[in-house]
């Protein structure tokens, strides 16, 4: 079958578009791979002339490593709080019939972006100030969790809805208590959904800039996402010795978490019916 020049042109245009898109996403990755090991890291990409000087410099930076630890603490608390509460709330909302349940969920989802978004910056700051939770990792983690919970509940409720009620009823007929039903049946069966929320919450919290920036005023408390902005040399221009290595370190936990969870549970979105 012969194809005309119009077809050829369409193919070429298609591949050019793909190539541009690919480059758009690949170039930052390549920069992240090369710049940390370059003696004179810039904003362009070039084959590095291998050095470990940047790494040493980053490790000597007074706040770089602390901020990564801060990030970990902040995200672990926020992830744990979000996952635990979202799981329980989603299960309850999936099983209990209350009038206006779906409306409530949609409203929560809608408002959550407002509540922890830019619009609520001032009230949140004032509230946290009055509660004495400024510069508190825990307080900041709670606010982040509060922002993530509606979406997490919304997603998890779908997973919980897919768990057949007969599983729970069956366990109940065999004499299982509510807690046993939850621990033996509901949680294991909805594990893929919970794993999804876990990763989603961690990644969201890890990349959250605005809330920690507002609520953690002390530079020794700040997480990596906030510190990254302040990595400047004395002249005020970006500190390109530290930033590449720091960015690389900053991206590792998310990648590791994704790999671990994907290996253990697999993001297959089968709603827990087939089991793992």
């Amino acid at each position: 079958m012969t194809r005309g020049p119009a077809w050829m042109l369409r193919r070429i245009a298609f591949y050019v578009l793909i190539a541009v898109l690919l480059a758009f996403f690949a170039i930052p990755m390549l920069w992240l791979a090369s710049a940390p090991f370059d003696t004179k890291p810039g904003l362009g990409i070039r084959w590095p002339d291998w050095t470990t000087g940047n790494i040493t410099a980053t490790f000597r930076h007074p706040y770089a490593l602390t901020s990564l630890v801060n990030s970990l603490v902040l995200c672990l608390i926020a992830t744990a709080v979000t996952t635990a509460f979202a799981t329980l709330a989603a299960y309850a909302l999936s099983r209990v019939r209350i009038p206006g349940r779906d409306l409530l969920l949609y409203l929560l989802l809608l408002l959550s972006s407002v509540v922890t978004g830019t619009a609520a910056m001032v009230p949140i700051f004032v509230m946290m100030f009055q509660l004495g939770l400024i510069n508190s990792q825990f307080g900041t983690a709670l606010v982040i969790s509060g922002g993530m919970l509606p979406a997490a509940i919304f997603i998890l409720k779908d997973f919980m809805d897919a768990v057949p009620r007969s599983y729970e009823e069956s366990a109940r007929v065999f004499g299982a208590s509510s807690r046993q039903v939850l621990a033996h049946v509901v949680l294991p069966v909805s594990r893929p959904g919970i794993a999804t929320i876990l990763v989603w919450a961690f990644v969201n919290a890890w990349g959250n800039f605005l809330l920690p920036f507002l609520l953690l005023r002390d530079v020794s408390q700040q997480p990596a996402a906030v510190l990254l902005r302040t990595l400047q040399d004395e002249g005020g221009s970006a500190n390109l010795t530290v930033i590449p290595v720091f960015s690389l370190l900053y991206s590792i936990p998310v990648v590791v978490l994704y790999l671990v969870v994907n290996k253990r549970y697999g993001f297959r979105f089968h709603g827990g019916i087939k089991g793992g």
Partner: protein
Amino acid sequence: MAGIEIAELSTVYPNGVRAVDGLDLTVADGEFFALLGPSGCGKTTLLRTMAGLEQASEGAVRIGDRDVTRLDPGARRVAMVFQDYALFPHMTVAENIAYPLRVRRMSKVSQRDAAERTSAGLSLGALLDRRPGQLSGGQQQRVALARAIAVEADVLLLDEPLSNLDARLRLEARTFLKKLQRDLGLTTVFVTHDQAEALALADRIAVMESGSIRQLGSPKEVFQRPVDTFVANFIGSTPMNLLDGLIADGMVEVAGARLAPPEGLDLVEGTPVVAGIRPEYLRVVPGAQEVTEGVAGILGAVAIVENLGVTSLVTIECADGTLVGLTVPEQHEPAVGTRLCVVPEAGRLLLYGGEDGLLLSARPSDHSAEFDRSRA
């Protein structure tokens, strides 16, 4: 082991639907009992109320000598197999079977023991370490049964136990289920919408409609003497012929024929009746094709022939348009258009009231009919 006693039981859903409506029922110890009815008749709700998964609104449920009406499902000593089997996908077959023991915090060793002991009897021994997802439908059903048996409950409740199996497997599983129930002697109540399943398995059947029992009896009673046209219509793999007729000169006039009524009935001239006759109980009168008026047989031309294997279901159309079905042996299958004269076998014609649809009975009415009348 124990029987079940249900008194004046009603289960009302929050939306006001009376799924079970003032129902009385006694299931004897060791009996294999079927709750049969079309969907929405309340049979599953009744079963779930026995299990404690639905709260009884009124009345009482007793198992053995214990009143379990207000007990939690787990405290009733019942075992239940769900329609979808409800096997836990994240547990192995052994863990599934031993789950009731795990709930009671029994040791891992006794859990494994119970799983091995129960599974051996159900030829599941080789599958203990598989997961439910890796089993066939029939195997899954046996695992669900094994799990229900492992608890050593007083009563076994089965919700549509065979409906998730394909037709071929269903027959096998049916035989298996009946043998298992006989061997265990366990009081078993099962819900089904398939009348053939109920007839084949049960010692007694309760035919339900709108939350109450229409007829209660052995499969033979329910099949041979349905108490009303609803039951008559529902029971039987080929539907019963229900023909509108009139009482005239002490005979039943139906589809242009005059049939002798069942003996011992007080029939009032001119009352409308419904003549009920199973296709299996109609016989072709040989050589009567040319007879016309006034014969004790229904005349009609063969309209449809459906092959059922050993027999064929023949539908004849009478002069007034009435359709009558009858089964004939395969070697006597008539051609379409043939004129036939058919008569009911002696004692097989049933008459129902033209208005209330209740069986006109000469015998002292049996319990179920009496019960039903008091309901109506």
